[in-house]
Every structure is written in structure tokens, then in C-alpha cells.
């Protein structure tokens, strides 16, 4: 037994060195390997006289412990994340939750009715397997709509794939496009799912920073501003190794709308990339453009004001996969219906994979969406269409939240001058708020935070959740480790307004306690 433990300890040291050199995530890989070794030690001791097995094979691959290639590629993403951590905080504290990106109301009645009807319509076999690439009724509806969005005929059978949410659409695109060693460009800040899916596909995420341009350039003033893509920046990072570019507009977390010009920079820059480079255009928030750009672009769709479909730009249909979903639009994130649209040569590999990944997405929910889509075009609650209603609803909520944030000392975008969409405000932490964050909370160790350290934005959010009854999401998980460690995300937090007015009002109250606190004289504050 002693001999075995010596071998295991030696193996652990080798493994640690190996993992540090390979993956550069010493602490987490170490923890994982140590756990594995413990399991092995226990097993070997159970087997008594069995010949002890080395935990590594002759090529140095870790044998037992259950970690497949996918988990190894995910590395730190297989441990606690900002989502698990803030979910825990929301459960352990009484908070107004403006963290999660999903509504706290029911989908519109016509959508709920559609699901009920779909479930009851025996004649259309809603309860059994459907076509793997997408339920015929649904793909027909999607083809109809995208014909108008993209200004071209879309073949429902060969140019559309239905998936379990937009997340899976993106996952499958990356699985069919990316080879180990390929670069995939994401614009920073980014939805962290992108980076982890790129890793799962064996690719290298390449971060192209959006630049924050404050309205007031004075260093001593913390004002709102806009996030812009500068053409020279993109050209610095794009190369023949670039296999895909993930474009997300309206943008999570900033709410930015990529302008027609910025989309043209991307289209031009494709010349410098691999000839097979594909743009993956994630458009899940496209029906929530609460502040459209002043000028209507020629490519703007009649159906969604303020949104330009990248695939409709000249020459871009062939180089683009358009991804969207029902969840944000119909306030039904739990339905998990997404899709991707593109030329047959890009869709065909996804069609090949779908039968093996899950065979098909839920039939009854697809049928429900197929029924709901035409209904959404009809007048709704006094508006021209459900989409108009949705945009107006979100605009009001945005204003409610923005007012409360400003009053509390945050700087937010000025939506009269800056276009915006989606249902998040990316707020900048003002001086008074910054000064209230207990110093002991900043730069502390935290396994879930990027780099294992809670910087200002994370500390603020954790303090707000634990002491002020308000849950928001820190900005650092939306930035690369390098950028967050350089302080680029320190000043921002993400707050959702896809919540009922009551919830937003409760948030406003929690925020107002910050303003009160900031005018309390220093002596009193310190004596508490």
C-alpha cells in the first residue's frame, strides 16, 4: 500500500507540473487531480492484492477520474461560475433579482394558448418524434419570415435547422466549423457561453475589444457612453487562422446595437480571414430594439425596426449563419426553441449531427411556436403587433430602471443619443458608490470569479446581494481574464430590466438606500 501511495504521489507531482505547463490553471486542475487520486487510492485499497494501476497511461493521459476530453477542454468552466455563484447568492439572501436574463411574467396569451392547442391537436402528432432538422410547420413559418428579413427566398428544408435554443444552434455551428487551432473572434465584452463553446470545439477564442467612449471625456467625471467597434482593431486580430466571427447584436451585456458601418467593417475584414471564415450572427434580442438608430439602414427589416440582419448585407448571405430563438421574444426562455439559417453547404453538416445529438427538438413546443408566429403579427393590446407592444413595454422598463440607477449614482447610456437593445443596462459605477464598497471585500479570493479574485465589480455585486437586497451581475465574467485583470471591467455591472414593474420598483428602493448611505457623514458610517 505504501508503495502504491508513493507512486500516486509521484504521479500527482508530475501531473501538476504537466497540467500547469499545458493548461495554466494550476489551482483548479490540481484540485481535480487530487480528487481523482483520492478516488483511486480508495479503489486500490479495496482491491487488496490487486496489482496497482498507474493513474496515467503510457502517453501521460489521465486515466481514471471520469474526465473526458470535453471537460478537459472546458478547464475552469467545469467549476463554479458567475451563474452558479449568483444563483446561490439569490437563494441565500432576500434579494430583488435583476441578475438573470429572463422575464418574471408569463408569455403572451396567444403563445400560451398556442402551446395548449398544439398539445391537444392529435391529428398533427404533436407528441411523437418529428423531422430531425426541424418540424415542417415551424420551418415553413421561419422561411416565410426570413424571406422578408433577408430579402431572398429561403428553402425551409435545406437552409434552416431547429435546435434546443440559440445556445445549441451556436454549439452545433462551432462543432461543424472549428478545428483545433482555429481562431474564433468574439467582441469583448461577450456572453461567456461563446468562449466555453469555442473551447469545447477545440478552437482559440480571440478577443477583439469594443472601445468604451464616454460622453464626457474628462477623467474626473464618470459618465455614461457608448461601446464602439473600431475598424483598425478588428484588422489587428483577424488572420487566415480565423475560422469564425461571433457577432451579437443587440449585444449582451452592453445593449449596444452594431451600426451598419460597423457591420461593414466586419464584412470588409473577412477579406483578410480564411476564405471559409463564417460570421455567426446571434440575434436573439432583435425584437427588443428599444432605442433604434436614428437613420434607417437600407437592410433594416420591415419586421424588426432598428435591427440589421448581417446576412442581408451585400455578399454576406454565403458567409453567414443567422442564429435566433423564441425565448427572449416571447418571454418563454424555458421553451428552448432556437434556429440557424444559412446556405445549404453550412446547414447540411448541422442536419447530419442533429439526429445523433438529440434526434429532434421537442415537437409540441415547435408546433406551438409555428402557431404563435403568425399571431404575433396581428394587433395586440392596442399595438400594431405583438412586436411593437414588446418594444414599448421594454422601453418603459428601461427608463424606470435607468432613472433609479442614475439617482443612486450609476452612469448609464443616454438612450436619446445612443441606440440600444436587449434588456440589460450596462451601468458604470459612480464615485459615491465605489466609496461605499467595504474595502475588505475587494481583491479577495473567490473561486468563481475570473482569476480567482473578486475585483471591484464583483465585490460590489456580492455586497449589494448580501447587504443591500439587490442582485446584479458583475462585468468581469464578460471579459477575458487578461482584460479583467487589467481593470477593464472594474467599473461596470449588468442589470436586467426584464422584470415586472413591481420588481423594478423594489429594485429602485434598494438602490435609493445607496444614495442615502452616501450622504451619511464618514464618522457615523465607520462607527456602525
Amino acid at each position: 500500500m505504501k508503495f502504491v501511495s508513493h507512486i500516486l504521489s509521484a504521479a500527482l507531482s508530475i501531473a501538476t507540473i504537466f497540467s500547469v505547463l499545458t493548461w495554466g490553471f494550476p489551482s483548479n486542475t490540481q484540485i481535480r487531480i487530487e480528487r481523482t487520486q483520492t478516488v483511486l487510492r480508495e479503489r486500490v485499497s479495496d482491491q487488496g492484492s490487486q496489482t496497482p494501476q498507474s493513474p496515467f497511461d503510457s502517453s501521460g493521459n489521465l486515466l481514471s477520474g471520469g474526465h473526458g476530453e470535453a471537460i478537459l477542454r472546458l478547464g475552469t468552466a467545469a467549476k463554479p461560475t458567475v451563474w452558479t455563484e449568483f444563483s446561490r447568492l439569490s437563494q441565500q439572501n432576500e434579494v430583488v433579482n435583476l441578475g438573470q436574463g429572463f422575464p418574471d411574467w408569463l408569455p403572451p396569451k396567444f403563445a400560451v394558448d398556442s402551446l395548449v392547442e398544439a398539445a391537444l391537436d392529435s391529428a398533427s402528432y404533436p407528441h411523437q418524434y418529428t423531422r430531425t432538422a426541424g418540424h415542417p410547420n415551424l420551418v415553413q413559418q421561419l422561411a416565410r419570415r426570413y424571406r422578408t428579413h433577408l430579402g431572398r427566398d429561403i428553402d425551409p428544408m435545406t437552409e434552416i435547422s431547429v435546435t434546443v435554443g440559440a445556445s445549441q444552434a451556436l454549439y452545433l455551428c462551432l462543432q461543424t466549423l472549428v478545428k483545433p487551432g482555429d481562431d474564433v473572434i468574439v467582441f469583448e465584452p461577450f456572453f461567456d457561453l461563446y468562449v466555453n463553446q469555442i473551447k469545447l470545439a477545440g478552437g482559440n477564442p480571440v478577443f477583439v475589444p469594443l472601445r468604451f467612449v464616454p460622453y464626457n471625456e474628462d477623467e474626473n467625471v464618470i459618465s455614461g457612453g457608448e461601446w464602439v467597434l473600431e475598424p483598425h482593431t478588428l484588422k489587428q486580430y483577424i488572420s487566415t487562422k480565423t475560422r469564425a466571427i461571433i457577432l451579437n447584436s443587440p449585444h449582451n451585456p452592453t445593449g449596444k446595437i452594431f451600426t451598419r458601418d460597423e457591420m461593414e467593417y466586419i464584412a470588409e475584414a473577412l477579406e483578410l480571414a480564411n476564405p471559409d471564415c463564417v460570421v455567426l450572427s446571434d440575434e436573439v434580442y432583435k425584437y427588443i430594439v428599444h432605442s433604434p438608430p436614428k437613420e434607417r439602414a437600407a437592410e433594416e427589416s420591415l419586421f424588426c425596426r432598428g435591427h440589421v440582419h448581417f446576412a442581408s448585407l451585400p455578399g454576406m448571405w454565403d458567409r453567414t449563419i443567422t442564429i435566433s430563438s423564441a425565448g427572449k421574444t416571447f418571454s418563454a426562455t424555458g421553451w428552448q426553441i432556437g434556429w440557424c439559417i444559412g446556405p445549404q453547404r453550412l446547414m447540411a453538416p448541422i442536419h447530419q449531427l442533429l439526429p445523433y445529438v438529440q434526434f429532434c427538438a421537442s415537437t409540441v413546443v415547435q408546433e406551438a411556436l409555428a402557431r404563435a408566429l403568425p399571431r404575433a403579427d396581428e394587433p395586440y393590446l392596442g399595438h400594431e403587433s405583438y412586436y411593437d407592444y414588446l418594444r414599448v413595454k421594454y422601453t418603459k422598463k428601461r427608463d424606470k430602471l435607468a432613472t433609479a440607477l442614475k439617482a443612486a449614482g450609476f452612469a448609464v447610456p443616454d438612450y436619446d443619443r445612443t441606440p440600444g437593445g436587449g434588456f440589460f443596462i450596462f451601468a458604470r459605477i459612480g464615485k459615491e458608490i465605489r466609496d461605499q464598497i467595504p474595502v475588505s471585500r475587494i481583491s479577495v479570493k473567490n473561486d468563481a470569479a475570473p482569476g480567482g479574485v473578486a475585483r471591484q465589480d464583483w465585490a460590489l455585486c456580492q455586497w449589494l446581494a448580501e447587504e443591500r437586497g439587490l442582485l446584479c451581475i458583475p462585468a468581469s465574467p464578460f471579459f477575458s481574464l487578461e482584460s479583467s485583470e487589467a481593470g477593464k471591467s472594474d467599473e461596470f455591472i449588468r442589470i436586467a430590466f426584464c422584470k415586472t414593474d413591481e420588481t423594478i420598483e423594489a429594485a429602485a428602493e434598494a438602490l435609493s438606500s445607496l444614495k442615502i448611505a452616501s450622504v451619511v457623514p464618514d464618522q457615523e458610517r465607520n462607527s456602525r
Partner: protein
Amino acid sequence: MNLRKAVVALSSRTTTRYSSRLFSSFLADRLHGLDRPTVWHEFSPLAAQHQAINLGQGFPDGDPPSFVQDAMHAAVFHKSANQYARSAAHMPLAQVLADEYNTKLKRTDIAAETHIATAVGCTHALYCALTGLIQAGDEVILLEPAFDIYSSQVQMAGGKAVYVPLRPSGKEGASQYFQLDLDEFERAITPRTKAFILNTPHNPTGKIFSQTELEGIAAVVQKHPRITILADEVYEHLVFDKAKEPHIPIASLLWDQTLTLSSAGKTFSCTGWKVGWAVGPPHLVQAVTAVQQWVTFSAPTPNQDAIAQALVQARQPYAGFASYYDYLADDYHQKQQLLVAALQSAGMTPIVPAGGFFIMADTSAIDFPFPTKETTPAMPATPMPRDWALSRWMTQTVGVTAIPPSAFYSPNNVPLAQNLLRFAYCKNAETLQEAQRRFAAYFQKQ
């Protein structure tokens, strides 16, 4: 029925001729062969074309029981049921599953938060499990005949499928007829073996692995701590003689190395709902949840919510039976008997299954024009295997469609399938009776 035929016919059009150019991704090697049309792409349209009775693909032609549909109806009106579920599993469903499996496995430690994952059907649970467990070059043992999705998923995860055939013994009943040689199984294990997929009740044979067989398998696997058993038990409630041949979960014998997978689709006749799950020790469940978090994030919530309710209801008395599960097993048993009679009247010898909703029938007595020089995109080999040719002929000439089991064997073992056909009986009585009429019309004239 016409819509159903149109649906599957249309699905065959998604296959393209682009094959080799398409896969320039890292999946290129892994997807080798996966761009070929499958047996389903061939036989569903063929059945539709000839208006044959389709006893091929395994989905019911009825609706879920009303208490299940009602559960979906109720779920839709809850706010939380329309938004993202907890990624690992929707808690109401996880709680019910934890209770169910503690009872089934006579344990008390299965906890909803740590021992349960839900996914988009059992197929997806298996996809996530393999993706989370397999390293490139790892081997996965499959028993043949094997559900065709297994080998594709293993390949996609970077693994290598190693086939161990169930061999015909000539004995009565599917469980005794299809035998696993434990020595052969043990010899298939190498230092690179990472998983073993055990499907019981078994598709396509209808075999239920016995206590003795499971003990033998467990004893072998226990010697190899690296191996995880992925136990696919989707037919667990379709068991026809609970006294003589009950379904036994192998997790009750080898908990630490088993991930038990199942789903709602077959049990509640709702294959289109796609609610599946994986249950086991936390370190194995994590393989599924870690992958799912970034692939889909979560399975659809209204469906999970409805199944949580359905699972509880199913334990109540139903249609004069002690539970819905008892009713279900009885219903399928009657359908099985209908089909057994029909097959016998056609001169075939059905190998009577102990569970599931497929029958393998011996077709050696059937005379038909063979060998054939024909090839199809899904079966390019020449000569075409006998069972494949027979199934095509039976569709076109007799008007009944079955699936040729060679689709479930690796190339080396295809000869084991030549005198067999797989028929599904998850169909209503009228469909089965019509099949009988067609068999009678053709074979009794001969």
C-alpha cells in the same frame, strides 16, 4: 397518417451529396460515415411510397394518456415553467426522480441537487455523458445488435466502438435466445476501455438481462475502475412477466460505476416531448451537467414540469390496474401477442421478447427473389444483406415494413442478421390487424 409519412419523407431530402467537402472541422474524422443516409432515411419514405403498414420506426401511433396531456396543460400556466430551468435539472422533476430511484434501487442517498441530470431525451443525456466522459481514443463497448445512435455518438465524442455480439442460442424467448458470452465480453476490455453501454430491456431483441447475467457483467466491470456503465433503460416499464423476468437496474449491483439513463418518451407515449435523465453518483452526473451547461443550458421547462407531475400520477390506479405502468405493460403485451400471431401466419418465427416494443422474427422460411444486385444510398454493399433485401421486398410486395437488423450490427457481424427482421408493435390494434390481413393475403395464398 399521411402527415406522418410526409414528415419522414421530407426528412430524407435533407441528405446532401456534398459529403466529403463539408467536414473541414475537427469533427472531420469523427463524422466519417455519419453523412451517409441511414436505415430510417430509406425505409420510412419507402413505406410511405408503397402505402405499407410501417412497423419499422419505434414511436407509438397513439397519444399520451390524458393525465399526461393534462399535466402539460397545467404546466404552461406557471410562470416559472416557461423560463429557463435549472441547468442540471428542473428541481420538481429532479425531486420526483430522486424519490423514484431511491425506491427502485433501495437507497436513501440519491439527492435531487447532486445525483440527477435531465436532458432533451435519453439520446441527449447519452450524448452529453459520452462527450463528458470520453477522451480521444477511448474505447466504448457496445453489445450487438445495438441501437444505431450509440456508435455514432461514440464516434463524435472521439471514441472507438468495440462490438461484442449477442449470439443466437436457439432457445425459446428473446432473453434466452440472445446470449452474451461473458468471457468474450471480458476479452473485449482493454486499458483504453472507458464505457460500456448496457441497454435493458434491449432494442432490438427485447431481451431483458437476468440477475445472473447482470452479476456476471458487474463482476467483470468492477475489476476495471476506469469503466462507466451507461445503462440505457428507456423500456424499463415495458416488461411482460414481472415475476419471471423483471427489469433489474444494474445500478443496484454496481452503483459507483453506473450512470442510469431513461426517459419519458416510451413510457408515456410522448417521444416528441424529449425529457430524459441520468441518475448516478455525483462524479458521473457531473459529466453530463458540465457538458449540458454549455451545449443547451437546459432542457425545455414546461415538458420537464409536466413529466414531474406525470411520474407521480403514474403510480396511482389506472383503468382498473394497480398503476399506469401495469396498464401499459398489459396493453403492450396484448399488442405483442397480436403481432406474434400475425408473424406466425406469415411463416416467420418470432423470438418472443420479454420487454420493449420490438420483436425480432426469424425469416429463414420465407422465399423471395434473392440475391439482389440492387444497392441503395443507405446500403451500398453488394450483395445487399439478405435481411435488408427482404425488408425492401416485403414493403413493396406484401405491404408491411420492418427494419432490417443489419442496420444495428457492425460490418463484421452483419451476417448474424441475415435471417432476422425487427418489427415494432407500439401501434394501435387496427394497424396490427391490418398487417395481419396483409400477411394472410400474401403468404396464405402461396
